[in-house]
């Protein structure tokens, strides 16, 4: 029996016992049909479609660049976007969806390229703001998972050079804060519309990537380096919020855990890097929600941020080895310590 059939069977049982109303049964039935449709379009296929769309979009841009040169891309891009929205909402089938995706990507790139030829101000400032508004408008209009996933990346990728170029690395903390707050709000809401799933996944990946990118930028930046503590504070607050949020359903903690856990995370964030706290947030939510992609992202980025931190220590290799091994022994000692903590669950 497939998993969807198992769900359908359980729903049938609920119908026979009267626990769900006819309207609720009907709504669930429609959604289960959509899930079955989705099963014929697995992630692998969507990735292939996305690659094909990117290729077509590039070719369209190149072709128009030859013919219309720069400014002509603006009206072309607008036209492509309008057609993409129309196809997405009205078209059926693989060709329509792929054409819509290609036109949406080409239209977005075309508009941005056209705008750079038209505006008089600093392109580095105008383009990311323009892209942000474009994405906010297109997100509800264009029901395409690939586009919705790529949209936040495009905004951050365009904003990052401006932040670095203008030496305004304090803005990176603002960016991290926005990503963190948006991610936590979306992922821990009681009701989660499927339209926001691509955005959730994008933010889960974007948060550690943004922290990593700006951490590396600080390394190559000429001194003095701006401090990382604002991001660390935000992420520490985010981690505590996640642990206390009802959606995580953390069981009642004993007094030892209530003191030990926040203290441990605070020390972790202070001594290592804010990125490690972001990885912990992903791991905790992944564990609570049983979401594999969050566990994988957290598991990948935690060693990355640990590695970046230890690599950046300004000591020779021998001393570095002692620091690393010592940190490991400290964590193993902590493990021994927490083994004696009570869980806070009442025993019957």
């Amino acid at each position, binding site marked *: 029996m*497939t*998993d969807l059939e198992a*769900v359908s*069977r359980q729903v049938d*049982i*609920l119908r026979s016992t009267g*626990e*769900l109303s006819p309207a*609720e049964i009907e*709504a669930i039935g429609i*959604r*289960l049909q959509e899930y079955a449709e989705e*099963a*014929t*379009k*697995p992630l*692998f*296929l969507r990735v*292939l479609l996305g*690659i*094909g769309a990117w*290729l*077509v979009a590039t*070719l*369209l841009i190149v*072709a128009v660049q*030859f013919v219309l040169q720069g400014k002509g891309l603006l009206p072309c891009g607008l036209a492509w976007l309008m057609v993409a929205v129309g196809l997405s909402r009205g078209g059926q089938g*693989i*060709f329509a969806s*792929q*054409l819509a995706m*290609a036109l949406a990507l080409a239209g977005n790139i075309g508009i941005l390229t056209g705008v750079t030829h038209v505006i008089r101000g600093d392109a580095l400032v105008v383009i990311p703001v323009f892209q942000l508004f474009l994405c906010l408008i297109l997100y509800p209009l264009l029901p395409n998972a690939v586009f919705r996933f790529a949209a936040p990346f495009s905004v951050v990728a365009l904003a990052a050079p401006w932040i670095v170029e203008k030496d305004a690395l304090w803005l990176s903390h603002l960016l991290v804060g926005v990503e963190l707050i948006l991610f936590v709000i979306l992922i821990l*809401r*009681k*009701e*989660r519309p*499927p339209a926001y799933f691509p955005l959730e996944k994008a933010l889960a990946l974007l948060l550690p990537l943004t922290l990593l990118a700006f951490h590396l930028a600080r390394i190559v930046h000429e001194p003095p380096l701006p401090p990382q503590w604002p991001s660390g504070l935000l992420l520490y607050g985010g981690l505590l919020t996640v642990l206390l949020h009802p959606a995580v*359903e953390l*069981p009642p*903690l004993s007094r030892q855990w209530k003191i030990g856990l926040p203290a441990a995370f605070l020390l972790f964030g202070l001594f290592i890097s804010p990125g490690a706290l972001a990885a912990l947030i992903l*791991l905790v939510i992944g564990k609570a929600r*049983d979401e594999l992609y969050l566990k994988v992202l957290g598991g990948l980025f*935690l060693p990355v941020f*640990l590695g970046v931190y*230890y690599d950046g220590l300004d000591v020779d*290799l*021998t001393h*570095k*080895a*002692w*620091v*690393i*091994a010592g940190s*490991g*022994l*400290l964590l*193993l000692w902590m*493990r021994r310590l927490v083994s004696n903590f009570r*869980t*806070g669950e009442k025993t019957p």
Partner: protein
Amino acid sequence: MASMKRGGANSSLYQKQLRRLYAEGLLPESVFRTFLVDSTPTARDWHFWFRSLLLVVGTALVLVGIVVFFAGNWAGMRPAFKFTLLEAGLAAAVLAAMLYGERRPEGKFFLGIASLITGVLVVLCSQVYHTGADAWELLAGWSLLIFGWVAAGRSALLWAFWLGLVHAAVILFWVHVAVPAYGFSFAAVALPLAILDILFLLLREQGWSRGLEWLQERWPRPLLLALSLVLLCLPIMEMILSSGLSPEQILCVPAWVLLAGGGYIRYRHRSPDLIALGLIISSGCLLLSAVVGRLLLAERGGEGNFFIFALVVLMISGAGALWLRTLAGDATARKEWAHD
């Protein structure tokens, strides 16, 4: 409240569908809780998870610290000490593998460690005795020395590592020796490597059919198939896009046809696998796009050709995706994709 049987419907995907229904407000909370009470982590689960996290990260840091210590002091160590250290480590790993046996994961793990240490020893020998060996020779020697362990190890991961060494050795040979001295094309090495990969794929499928436990994991099939397809597609694309032609490149065409055709029949009917079919169809779309691109864009001038090429690529990739989606839909309806 109806009592729910959880026996066959506790898979994570089933629970994911229910979570989605609940998240979209379609399932009342009381019903949702009845379905998912088993999946909510308890205090004991969180306790175990946190301790496991500390164990994994703590152990990893200690091991990394040891490696960094030796890396930092390596240059200053005497050769005799280096050899003693590595050979002691090698002996300990082999002994541990023998004690655990090749059937247990611990035995396979220690065989893997022994294989890695062998590679480090090969490099150390080359440095200390100034053999002047090239990188490809070191890799070839390494793969030869560990072949026995790999064969005895019954580990798909170890075999994949060994295959990677062989590929790296052959490709480095091509870069440093075959091209400068003999002017070999890439197809001259790609074709034999692809044949090797296809042979391993056939052996893996045979082993899987016979129920060999260590070959039941899913990842070797797409890995070997992707490797074979890439090694055959690259010379064919080189042949399409450039003006030169070599016998090895021509031979890659029937090899690709055989692989794609045989793979399609196998993974469509005998062992349904959407990822394998996707790889085959994608490689076909790529080659077809290359042919069309060569025909349309070979001569400059005619910007309209870019538009036409864009539309053709769209049609080719769309057709490929539609084909895959149809296969997926048919198989889901027939309850296939009962993966190995």
